[in-house]
């Protein structure tokens, strides 16, 4: 991965992390604030319903008081104080009175606690009324004595908000127990804020009964999930709150406040105490009668507004964050490009230097560390050029010296026989003129032979010195290989103990190269391989691609080379052969190098040697101009 990409990733990751952290922090803070505000709103709604409930209790009390103060009740109370009153006359009176005051429940109860008239269950006359006959006091749950009571009706029990008042005309009091149903009708009269709903659980059974859970339309459907909340309130008789997850969508969640509605426990067996308590109702209401759970008011507030607001905030935050990240990435791109441009230039220059182009320069654009680095690089390349020049100079000197030494050595060998032959001729001329003719012929033959030898030596050196620059053109390497093998075909036929194996790539790209020079280089390698297998063996030539390069390998199964020999193999004039000049592989290396390629050797003793040439399809840039 490039430095620029790393830098870009680093910048992007840093920005992303910052955005995420900031977004999470903001979201958490907003969510907390929303939750708190929502909780306060839900509490306010619950408090509103408590207040509403109290107000409805006051309404019931007022209505019952109104009935008690009415002329009809006063007349009935007066009649009851007369001895021969037929209480059956009043059996339908309660229904009429209840209708006038819009009360759902109203019972007229005589001083013995016997129902004279019942609006809600007309047939109940003559039965005792537990709220009057109970030993416990009439309730004090509601304001001014309103209380919750379970009321038995022909079609089953129900829940009501009741109040008890006394119409006292003579000795015998007349009790009035009036109330309103606590059911869906009651719920429908409540002022319910938008997004809120109210359910009422009538605790009329010993176990959870879904039919007792009412909404505005009657028994609420699909509310079994509330059962646990109701059960908790039934167990503790304390307010409780729970989030109900209706669906997998959290926007459908509702927060339910469960408010226990309690009422007094009436005991129908102790009548006198009840009478006493009702006679002193104000005192009785403070008596603290034991309470039981009559119902549970469930105020549900939808979390949809909250969730949708949160989602809107999250969407906005994600949009802003995304835009920020995009801007940050773009800025990172620009910044990374700006920061890494000198580095990239430096790397490019370094690659060119590594490839041999010591003339590569880096433009110094700044005065910071990167500018200093670029300047140092330029100085280094200049030093390298100078060093190379010096080395080249030294190598040239060394080469000249080596050349001189080799020339001296090569020339010295034929010169000695020439000198000896000439001295022999001179000596024969002086001391044995009769043998001069014979010696002359022998001597001139030797001289000519040595002179030929000198010509050969001079020709080789001349040839090496005349290595031309490559004349590039599209070249198919496989064709070059085949032409080389055709050259050696006859020779290899003679030495039939050498088998030739060619593994040429079916598809090989053309390269830009000088086919004659390549032919010459491969010819040297094949010749070396043949020389390395005097006892016969196998010559293998392979071609193939290696990335954007073409590879040629020439392998023999000869005796192989030592590591030291491998290290010095391409040194000019180094040879392992008795009569070699040590220029063959130097020529090969020179050709390969001139094509921008490289040559390597792998050898295992007693197994053979492989020369591997890699040539680029296109010449390196610094050679293009030269071409």
């Amino acid at each position, binding site marked *: 991965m490039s430095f620029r990409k790393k830098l870009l990733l680093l910048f992007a990751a840093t920005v992303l992390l910052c955005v995420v952290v900031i977004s999470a922090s903001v979201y958490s803070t907003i969510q907390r604030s929303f939750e708190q505000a929502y909780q306060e709103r839900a509490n306010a709604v619950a408090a509103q319903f408590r207040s509403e409930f109290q107000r409805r209790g006051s309404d019931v009390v007022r209505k019952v008081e109104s009935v008690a103060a009415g002329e009809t009740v006063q007349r009935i109370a007066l009649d009851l104080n007369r001895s021969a009153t037929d209480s*059956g006359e009043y059996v339908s009176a309660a229904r009429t009175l209840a209708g006038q005051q819009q009360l759902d429940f109203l019972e007229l109860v005589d001083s013995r606690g016997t129902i004279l008239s019942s609006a809600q269950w*007309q*047939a109940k*006359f*003559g039965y005792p009324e537990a709220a009057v006959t109970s030993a416990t006091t009439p309730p004090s749950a509601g304001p001014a004595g309103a209380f919750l009571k379970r009321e038995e009706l*022909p*079609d089953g029990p129900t829940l009501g908000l009741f109040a008890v008042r006394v119409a006292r005309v003579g000795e015998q009091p007349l009790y009035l127990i009036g109330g309103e149903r606590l059911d869906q009708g009651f719920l429908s009269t409540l002022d319910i804020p938008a997004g809120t709903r109210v359910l009422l659980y009538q605790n009329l059974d010993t176990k959870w009964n879904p039919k007792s859970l009412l909404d505005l339309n009657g028994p609420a459907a699909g509310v079994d999930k509330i059962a646990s909340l109701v059960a908790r309130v039934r167990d503790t008789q304390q307010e409780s709150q729970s989030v109900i997850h209706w669906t997998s969508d959290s926007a459908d969640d509702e927060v339910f406040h469960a408010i226990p509605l309690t009422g007094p426990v009436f005991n129908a067996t102790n009548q006198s105490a009840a009478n006493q308590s009702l006679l002193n109702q104000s005192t009785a209401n403070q008596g603290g009668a034991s309470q039981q759970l009559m119902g549970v008011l469930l105020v549900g507030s939808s979390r949809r507004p909250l969730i949708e607001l949160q989602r809107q905030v999250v969407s906005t935050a994600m949009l802003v964050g995304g835009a920020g990240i995009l801007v940050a990435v773009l800025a990172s791109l620009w910044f990374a490009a700006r920061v890494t441009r000198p580095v990239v230039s430096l790397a490019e220059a370094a690659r060119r230097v590594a490839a041999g182009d010591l003339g590569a320069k880096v433009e110094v654009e700044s005065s910071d560390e990167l500018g200093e680095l670029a300047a140092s690089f330029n100085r280094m390349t200049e030093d390298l050029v100078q060093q190379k020049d010096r080395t080249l100079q030294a190598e040239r000197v060394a080469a000249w010296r080596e050349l001189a030494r080799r020339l001296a050595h090569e020339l010295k060998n034929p010169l000695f026989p020439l000198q000896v032959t000439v001295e022999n001729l001179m000596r024969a001329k002086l001391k044995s003129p009769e043998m001069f003719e014979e010696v002359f012929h022998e001597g001139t033959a030797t001289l000519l032979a040595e002179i030929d030898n000198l010509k050969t030596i001079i020709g080789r050196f001349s040839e090496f010195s005349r290595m031309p620059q490559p004349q590039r053109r599209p070249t198919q390497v496989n064709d070059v290989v085949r032409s080389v093998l055709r050259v050696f075909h006859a020779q290899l036929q003679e030495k039939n103990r050498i088998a030739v194996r060619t593994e040429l790539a079916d598809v090989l790209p053309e390269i830009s190269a000088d086919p004659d020079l390549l032919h010459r280089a491969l010819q040297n390698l094949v010749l070396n391989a043949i020389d390395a297998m005097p006892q016969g063996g196998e010559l293998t030539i392979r071609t193939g691609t290696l990335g954007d390069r073409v590879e040629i390998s020439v392998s023999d199964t000869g005796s192989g080379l030592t590591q030291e020999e491998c290290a010095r193999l391409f040194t000019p004039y180094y040879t392992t052969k008795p009569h070699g000049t040590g220029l063959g592989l130097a020529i090969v290396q020179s050709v390969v190098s001139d094509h921008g390629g490289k040559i390597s050797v792998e050898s295992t003793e007693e197994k053979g040697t492989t020369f591997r040439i890699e040539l680029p399809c296109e010449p390196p840039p610094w050679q293009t101009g030269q071409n």
Partner: protein
Amino acid sequence: MTLMIALTNATAETRPHYGGTLRVMLQSAPDTLALPENATPAEYWDAVRTLSLVGDTLLKLDAQSRPQPALAVAWQNDASARHWQFTLRRGVKFHDGSAASAAAIAQILGAIHSNWNVRASADSVAIESETPMPSLLAELALPRNLLLKRNGNGLPIGTGPFLVAEWQPGKLLKLAAYEESWAGRPFVDAVEIEFGKSLRDQAIALELDKTDLIEAAPQVASGSRRHGTSSSLSLSLPVELMALVFSANSKARDPRLREALALAIDRKPIQSVLLKGAGEPAAGILPNWMTGYGAVFSAQPNPQRAQTVLAGSPQPALKLSYDPRDPQAQVIAERIALNAREVGITVQVSLSGAEDIRLMRVVLPSPDPATSLTEAARQLGLPQPGFPATRGNALDDLYQAERGSLHGFAVIPLFHLPVANAANARVRDWQPGRLGEWNEAGFSLADLWLADRLADSRGGSRPEAGSR
């Protein structure tokens, strides 16, 4: 002069005289002038009251179940009670002028009872049957044996004190006094009966003097009688039975459950409060005035015993239905449900769905207990009571038959109820029948007269009531 006018007016107000139209209101709205099949008690009484003014039976039974002559003046039967012969009143004519001859009477009776062999002789009608007919006299006194012919419009033509003058089905019936009635011309010239009036509307109309004679709920009549009103209120003997009847598919199949329900019901508060003292708590089908042994069937509640009886028996929730046209039926049914709940029986009062128990009122149409028991059993859906074939209404047989009808608590009698009428002060000499009818033995609508100026001005001769 002034004194004479005053005396004339005083006489007109206190002495019976002819003339005037008696305005009557009834609840039912019949489409035809005939006794309806499966009628409610109100429909039955309205039809009986109407038709008994038009037609006559061969004989009538008084409140003591004694036969009284009507179109037949004498009768006799053989020992097996299979052969009966009735001597007809002479000179009686139908409203269309035809003679009420033995042949005509035999033809009518033969059409009503196809299983009888009815034969006419010169002035008598013979009735024969393959089976003994010990209760034939009571049967012939029933309203279904009114001797009526039908004209081309299907209107009844009888021998009664009034003839049909105008008929608007379901709305109005105008009857005119039959001048040649064998019992003498009625005092009033006409009777105008409006149908389809609720008891409340009838009561209001009576208070406003828009009608002269109405029906009344027994409890209203009883309550009003206790308070005293200007209207003349009358109650008959208890001639109806209010009872709980278990349907054929009732879930209360266990007799113990039925017995427990019977023991749980406290009839007295219902009778005293809801029925305002009218009627009598009942545990038997027949009222005590018919049988004399009514006290044998105890109507006292016994919740403790009910709970004991109920122990171990299945206790399904029972659905109790009632006649919604009966204004008191719902609250009585609810009271029964309340009583049942006290002992642990769940009874739900409802008009919808399959009923287990029905709160019914049935008519006891005859003062003859055997006939009423038979008719009551038919209306209640009970098996016909078994009477010995060869003897009459011996008390022991009657008791055993009634006992048999009550076996297994297939029916729980609750009350024996009277029927009631109310007439305004304009109606004089109103002697309502003790059996709830308007033309029974000793009591007839034809005997009343109207004390208004219109009646006085029309009255030419003013015969004494007994002179007819």
